[in-house]
């Protein structure tokens, strides 16, 4: 048996990040880690010839200070909510999980986790944007967990609790926190607020087991969703990506029943659906890396630079899913990612 280094056995700290509060807190928590001073996080993260999957097994932590841009307009891979005020940001790069369909493997050269510890700079960027919204009649929506899973790390790095406090203080800001985590307990002392959406990505248990390495089981996630709904949080469910395996219809219909039977679905804010889709370059990079995942050897089409299902199949999948979901939710609460 190979003894891989434990998670965060090494922490790389940017010179300019060392004295920031979040760095100090993290370094205090990981007293046994090797601390290595670096000039810039890209000296580690952007090295050539790294092995993403190996780094996932022996993940290191990089503490850094993010310089601009601190806010990105939502891309067409992110649902736009038909709102011109949609953005995402990156308080962290990479996450503790290792889902086979995750685009980050193709986007980043490294599997190590980068934590940007200058939270205030992120807050300032949002404050500035709030003053110049394209559509001031609508709230600004910021997805803060687009390139990571912050809730999964909340017990280690208290980031979302700070973001929640920040969002609560704003009149026209909504932050969306996406997660597959079961660690809802990490928020138990925080009261829910209309400016926060907790979004859980759920998949049938067979998918969790085969394609979502290191994530909690469906059952654990459902317990977290139930706790959040019961506590009064605004909760979104994401069935995304829907993966087309043998018997997918049966698997997903049973899954929807299972989910809805375990939670008070009337309290859900909404639900989003999406099939597998990935930027062509990321897809090819992941495939070339030799990842042993059958997902990358299925039949897809290249739809203007996005690798996805054939249009007819995609429509059929979405139709089947939507028809089943509207047994529980009104159709207007079901959103589709095109």
């Amino acid at each position: 048996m190979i003894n891989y280094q434990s998670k965060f056995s090494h922490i790389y700290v940017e010179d300019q990040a060392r004295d920031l509060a979040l760095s100090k807190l993290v370094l205090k928590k990981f007293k046994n880690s090797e601390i290595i001073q670096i000039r810039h996080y890209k000296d580690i993260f952007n090295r050539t010839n790294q092995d993403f999957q190996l780094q996932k097994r022996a993940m290191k932590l990089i503490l850094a200070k993010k310089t601009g841009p601190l806010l990105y307009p939502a891309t067409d891979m992110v649902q736009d909510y038909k709102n011109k005020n949609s953005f995402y940001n990156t308080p962290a790069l990479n996450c503790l999980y290792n889902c086979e369909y995750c685009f980050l493997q193709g986007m980043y050269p490294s599997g190590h986790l980068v934590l940007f510890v200058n939270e205030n700079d992120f807050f300032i960027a949002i404050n500035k944007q709030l003053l110049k919204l394209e559509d001031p009649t609508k709230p600004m929506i910021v997805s803060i967990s687009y390139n990571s899973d912050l809730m999964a790390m909340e017990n280690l790095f208290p980031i979302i609790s700070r973001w929640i406090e920040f969002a609560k203080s704003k009149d026209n800001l909504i932050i969306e926190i996406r997660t597959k985590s079961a660690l809802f307990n990490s928020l138990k002392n925080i009261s829910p607020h209309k400016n926060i959406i907790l979004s859980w990505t759920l998949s049938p248990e067979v998918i969790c087991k085969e394609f979502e390495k290191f994530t909690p089981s469906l059952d654990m996630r459902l317990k977290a969703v139930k706790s959040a709904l019961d506590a009064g949080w605004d909760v979104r469910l994401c069935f995304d990506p829907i993966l087309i395996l043998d018997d997918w219809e049966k698997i997903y219909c049973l899954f929807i029943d299972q989910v809805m039977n375990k939670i008070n679905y009337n309290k859900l804010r909404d639900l989003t659906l999406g099939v597998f889709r990935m930027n062509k370059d990321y897809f090819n990079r992941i495939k070339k890396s030799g990842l042993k995942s059958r997902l990358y050897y299925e039949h897809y089409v290249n739809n203007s630079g996005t690798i996805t299902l054939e249009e007819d199949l995609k429509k059929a999948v979405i139709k089947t899913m939507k028809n089943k979901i509207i047994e529980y939710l009104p159709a207007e609460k079901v959103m589709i990612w095109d």
Partner: protein
Amino acid sequence: MLCILTALKAESEPLINFFKLKKDSSFDFPVFSNNDIILVATGVGGKNISKRITTVHNQFKRFNLIFINIGIAGGNSKNSKISKCYSINKIMDERERKTYYPEIFIKHPFNEKKIKTFKSVVKSINEDFDFLIDMESFDIFKVCSKIVPIHRIVFLKVVSDYVNENFQKLNATFISELISNNLIKFKIYFDSLIQFSKLRSNILNNDDVTWLKEINKVLSLTESQKTIIFNKVKGFRLRKKDEKLPSFAIKPPNSKSNQKETLKEINDQLSI
């Protein structure tokens, strides 16, 4: 397979004896090996490093080489100990224009330190330094990182002197003794690294490769057809780990359309 890189004969001799390495006379520089380990004498300084490492790599690259530079280094009496071996996690050169960070991914029995590489022997240093000092780590990382992924480059340095204090004591016997004192720990670490280097990373097994060659030979596939069928076989193997690929009694096609039909049939079978 591990590829140990040493600069001095006195460093390599205890390793050659302990791991029972045999001289490989096919190289025009000193190379010793057994089934799992090759030892290459790089000589002192950057001069021979590139040529020797590249030559050996070309010969052995099918074995997923992990390069391990083992050697002596100077240290500071305030933060290092003579005869103690350190695993290196940061490599600077004397002008500090660039820094390398070895990727330490397997547990090891050593403490860790950073190292600074100098072009010439350092007999005194006027600072309260907290790194080790040597003459080759920087160049070795530079060369190796171009030919293997960075996690396959390891640096183990044994402190031989405190630079300002006892430099004159260094002689071949003393250096060999320093290396010998750490052989058991080297072995523990090497066992894990050897095991890692033997992990199979290919999706296809030997039978799959033979199957593909046969199909290609009989059907005279174009490059793009080869790619399609290659990916299909990979998908099949990932879905069905222990199943054999479907067997076909394929005849050489008598026309292009006949070839395409056969290929479609194979494709369909692989998609099930």
